[in-house]
């Protein structure tokens, strides 16, 4: 077993490299991804090694990046589109929702829309506006799409490769605040299927469910809680759509209580979906309603105060207290 330690950014870079090596039909396309290697350096060195025809520096137009990737898919290519930041995916929304999501159906299966849209998402990096958004639920809602998010370097390395190999279009959400955190990567085999929930920590009192940047926050909350004698189970909903509900159900049947965590505001969000599904599936096990810890219902704030917008350990523990106090 060959295990190496690297950052999530590097793991994504290596994963992309493997995919480019393995399949000549794999292309990367995006703004500044070639010579510059992307503003987060995720594609660093790849244009140099695979050429300008496979690692394509795009003119500045997101609808065109996705729209031409659709044409390339019809021609048999698998394009990994990089959106420079979450807030810049919206110009491509029409192509994603009306074409990427629907063309497999609309062509009665003749087209394979095996493309990946990489989305550095969520906040926490002290950026200016439009650079810290959480648009995952827009895509999760959309029939025809799949949405996943990595939370560790190992997952990043494997999930990006699995996503590229998959035949359905995938919105690949990368928690940009975790790009520079290191972790072990097993270069031999993936830890799990692409569309999985992953148990990150076992516990008995309350189940925490979240994804992306929130996974680390949940784990820190669990540490703190443990020191106070409260045992939290942590589930990484790394498959945001479809949700892999079975591990969540198993956990909630055990704990009887759960809290969802996300940076997006709560309205019609992934948290809402998890609450709706788990309430239905675990009704008799539930000792308290599921509570959502999320960003507030305001435009993402100036980054000097973003940590009071993003779910914090404190807010998660407050919610844990609430669900634990519910039936007492």
């Amino acid at each position: 077993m060959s295990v190496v330690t690297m950052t999530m950014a590097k793991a994504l870079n290596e994963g992309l490299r493997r995919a480019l090596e393995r399949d000549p039909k794999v292309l990367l396309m995006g703004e500044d991804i070639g010579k510059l290697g992307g503003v987060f350096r995720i594609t660093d060195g790849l244009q140099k090694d695979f050429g300008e025809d496979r690692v394509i520096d795009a003119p500045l137009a997101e609808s065109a990046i996705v729209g031409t990737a659709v044409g390339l898919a019809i021609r048999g290519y698998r394009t990994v589109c990089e959106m420079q930041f979450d807030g810049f995916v919206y110009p491509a929304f029409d192509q994603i929702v009306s074409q990427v999501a629907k063309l497999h159906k609309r062509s009665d299966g003749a087209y394979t829309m095996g493309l990946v849209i990489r989305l550095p998402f969520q906040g926490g990096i002290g950026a200016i506006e439009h650079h810290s958004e959480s648009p995952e639920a827009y895509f999760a809602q959309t029939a025809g799409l799949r949405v996943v998010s990595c939370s560790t370097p190992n997952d990043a390395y494997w999930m990006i490769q699995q996503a590229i190999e998959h035949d359905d279009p995938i919105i690949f959400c990368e928690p940009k605040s975790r790009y520079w955190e290191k972790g072990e990567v097993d270069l031999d085999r993936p830890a799990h299927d692409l569309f999985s929930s992953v148990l990150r920590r076992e516990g008995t009192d309350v189940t925490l469910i979240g994804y992306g940047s929130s996974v680390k926050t949940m784990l820190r909350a669990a540490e703190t809680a443990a020191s106070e004698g409260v045992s939290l189970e942590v589930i990484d909903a790394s498959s945001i759509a479809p949700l892999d509900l079975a591990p969540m159900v198993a956990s909630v049947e055990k704990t009887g209580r759960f809290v969802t965590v996300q940076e997006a505001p709560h309205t019609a969000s992934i948290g809402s979906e998890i609450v709706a599904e788990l309430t239905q599936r675990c009704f008799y096990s539930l000792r308290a309603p599921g509570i959502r810890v999320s960003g507030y219902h305001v435009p993402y704030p100036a980054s000097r105060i973003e940590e009071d917008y993003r779910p914090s350990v404190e807010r998660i523990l407050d919610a844990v207290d609430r669900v634990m106090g519910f039936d007492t």
Partner: protein
Amino acid sequence: MIDEELVQLLTPEGERVSHPDYTSTLNSEEIFALYRDMVIIRRLCNEATSLQRQGQLALWAPLQGQEAAQIGAGRAMAPMDFSFPTYREHGIAWCRGIAPEDMLRIFRAVTTGGWDPQKYRHAVPTVVLGNQALHAVGYAMGIQRDGAEEAVLALFGDGASSQGDTLESFVWAAAFNAPVVFFCQNNQWGISTPSSLQFKVPLYRRAEGFGFPGIRVDGNDVLAVYEVTKRALENARVGGGPTMIEAYTYRMGAHTTSDDPTRYRVDAEVEVWKHRDPLARVKALLTREYNTKSSAFDDVVAEAESLALKLRVDVLAMGRPDPITMFENAYAAEHPLIEEGRREMIELGVSAGSPA
């Protein structure tokens, strides 16, 4: 003559005219074949309109008036070229070999597809204005990467020319020197919107500002459309980059069968364009220049008639699909919500179960 810069090889009266850059390369059989295509597609289109009027189609988007533009462009394509249509490109579909009944499936609302786009090298229709122009450029970028000598025809209307996607596709085609020919049928109207609102100078001139040639062709002159499109496609195939063709034509009918054009345009305008009919001029040419017999014309009419009859029969035979088919091809791979939906529908008993 509508515009000095318009490429025209055949006048509305059927007289040949010379053009400095283009001459017709077609012989009498070939011209007759184009004529036949136009007669047939017009007839089929009329049949579709009447099927809609009789409640057999949900909607129909007639092509009347645009037969020369579509047949000229469609026949200019090589077999390995690929086209990206809107919802009105029945003439192109015909040239690609797609069965008439397949063109009508989407309008009978029994499917969201209709034909195998990969087999006929003709994409499924795009209703969202402009989206397909980017697909065309992307496909063309794939051709480049494959090192193939193929070209793409991107179809759109005067109205769609205002959409960001169409305009971005010009930027991209130029940036990558993509083997794509933009073929805009300027039929003067986008539902009730006159093309004069979409562009203040002739549309074909827009191409130049993006770095590739634009050309305006008499869209009702099948000989001119054929030559202009053929040359642009050939040029694209050998690395010459994109061209934009504005086929200047007219939507003789309603936008769709749901539309009422009397609310926004005057009869006189339609009358003017009647005199520019794309079929009449070719018939005049064939008669005068090649002495084509009237029986030959009659044969085409009869053929069109029987195709129309077959179309009617085929359409009437298209039954309501099993609702369970809505779950097919929503995803390529397994998906729990698809399984859940399918199960629910089966339990509700509205379906006999998945045929697959």
